[in-house]
């Protein structure tokens, strides 16, 4: 969509100097939009508080959580949680119209809040909700929005440097919004580390009211069908993940990945081409446009290690790569590698792990 992401480095724009207009200079503070749906805070919002805290400290400004929904007690409780994860203050917008997420009222609320309190940075999760909302809010405010960032930093001129993988498979680009505010960015779940909660940390609550009436909202929520304990939803949080790529050669061989995951009590997934071929369901895709994982052990079998895959797995404690090609890029970021045929090595690994773990059971 953004044509610029495919523009080569060193093109004219990179050197363009842009000033921040006077009326934006008063924009201060870092905001994190808190996704609070069906009584749950989305973990990505807490991860963003951790990241937002660092940005706010660097800028020497406050970190605010923005909490919208219906039911004052619940929202105050959420505010308390955000304080322990690093927020200095929380804006609470309580209105029955905000009970279920809908684009229209949420966009109205967020736009009004930005216009009143003028943040310099606003972060949202790159979830279904966050993407739906961020695009609408940024367009209404006519400001810049960078999607799916993998790194956020503040440069020498107090500008947000938002880095994301770019088109083509092996490049990253850093995007700035120089002459508009707020600078908006979305980050996918699990890309940033979950901060440690500090019990007893507190903050201020600022109530914000907007005139919202149900009659004025065009789209109505008729029903909500919650996901049943969807096993694939656990992939992002699994301690051990085994994944396969095109090196598996056939859809049947996906079973070899599942078997190893099973033996280790872990979860499994694959690279994007496997989804495109219909070998694995979309929710099993790992990478930039799939799940980001942060397991203790990640085993990648027959995966080349393209940047879009890499950004989804880099948070793993130990990355083990199995590939027939000793030059495969995955060996540039894996910790342990082996040049081997995954199709014969995977079953051998499954057997060996099973044996070691069961021997111990007999002995212990």
């Amino acid at each position, binding site marked *: 969509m953004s044509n610029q992401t495919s523009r080569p480095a060193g093109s004219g724009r990179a050197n363009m100097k842009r000033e921040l207009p006077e009326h934006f200079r008063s924009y201060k503070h870092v905001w994190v939009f808190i996704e609070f749906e069906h009584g749950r805070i989305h973990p990505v919002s807490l991860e963003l508080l951790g990241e937002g805290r660092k940005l706010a400290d660097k800028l020497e400004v406050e970190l605010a959580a923005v909490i919208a929904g219906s039911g004052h007690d619940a929202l105050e409780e959420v505010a308390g949680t955000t304080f322990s994860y690093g927020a200095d203050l929380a804006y609470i917008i309580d209105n029955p119209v905000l009970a279920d997420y809908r*684009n229209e009222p949420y966009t109205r609320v967020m736009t009004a809040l930005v216009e009143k309190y003028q943040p310099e940075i606003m972060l949202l999760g790159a979830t279904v909700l966050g993407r739906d909302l961020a695009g609408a809010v940024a*367009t209404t405010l006519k400001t810049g929005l960078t999607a799916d960032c993998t790194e956020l930093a503040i440069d020498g001129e107090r500008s947000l440097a938002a880095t994301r993988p770019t088109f083509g498979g092996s*490049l990253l680009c850093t995007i*700035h919004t120089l002459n508009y505010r707020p600078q908006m960015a979305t980050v996918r779940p699990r890309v940033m580390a979950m901060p440690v909660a500090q019990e007893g940390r507190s903050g201020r609550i600022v109530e914000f009211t907007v005139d919202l009436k149900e009659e004025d909202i065009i789209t109505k929520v008729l029903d909500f069908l919650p996901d049943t304990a969807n096993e694939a939803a656990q992939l992002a949080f699994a301690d051990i993940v085994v994944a396969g790529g095109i090196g598996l050669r056939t859809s049947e061989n996906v079973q070899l990945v599942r078997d190893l995951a099973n033996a280790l009590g872990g979860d499994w997934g694959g690279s994007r081409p496997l989804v495109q071929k219909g070998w694995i369901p979309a929710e099993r895709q790992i990478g930039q446009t799939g799940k980001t994982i942060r397991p203790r052990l990640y085993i990648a079998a027959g995966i080349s290690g393209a940047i879009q895959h890499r950004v989804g797995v880099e948070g793993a404690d130990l990355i083990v*790569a199995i590939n027939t090609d000793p030059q495969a890029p995955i060996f540039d970021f894996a*910790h342990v590698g*082996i040049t081997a045929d995954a199709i014969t090595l995977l079953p051998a690994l499954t057997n060996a792990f099973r044996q070691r773990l069961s021997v111990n059971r007999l002995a212990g």
Partner: protein
Amino acid sequence: MQIFVCIKQVPDSGQIRVHPVTNTIMRQGVPTIINPYDLFGLEQALRLRDRFGGEVTVMTMGPPMAVDSLRKALTYGADRAVLLTDRVFAGSDTLATSYALSNLILKAGETWGAPDIVFCGKQTIDGDTAQVGPGIARRLGLSQLTYVSGIDDMDLTDRQILVRRRGDHGVQVLRSQLPVMVTMMEGSNEIRRGTQADALRAARAEVVKWNAATVGIPDVSLCGLRGSPTVVKKVFAPTAREEKAEMVATTDQSPVAMADALINQIFTRQPALQDDLLRQAAGH
């Protein structure tokens, strides 16, 4: 009923290479395709037209060669195609793109009738932002329905539409009011094989070509590079980690020997993981 479908011509993703020295993307000779996410919107549009009557217009903003993608869309059965092409749009980010496309939609609406539904791809495979659809909806005041997994019903008399929308924790059943902007979930349908008649028609059809002036863009300073608030400051290759992967090698090249050596290496590096696995195994 008027249905507009916004599409984008994108390079076939698997075939992109990066110049090893200059870090620039080598686009030459890379075949292009219609952004795969757009096809779910196109198919849904064709189904609605087949059921309720009316016309499907496909449109894009892009370079002159994007006409190929529009022609391809006609072979699937779209009724007409419009290309908005002009140098002023070069370098557009998502905000500038939604500005150009919303003006294109307005002009197309004046010409053939205002759209009841505008379909956009959920995201593209190159930019991958998912921002242009919402941007268009905001600018044109259309109700925004993203991540739609199915359109259950539509009533053209009272102008209502009933959809299922894939949320983060489940499916929302929504009722909204036309006109709407819809992005379809991948896998919600499959693009049809065009008929031979459509293929013949597409080959002969004239793709409507407009530029900034014919569309009547109110403010060209909001287009292209100039109209884009985001600035790409740096494009770079990811740094390799300090040390490369430690390679496990065995003299005995049998899978059993290699598996053994690999597991030893894993447990040496992650002793705590070994303990936990053993505990877990013992507990069962």
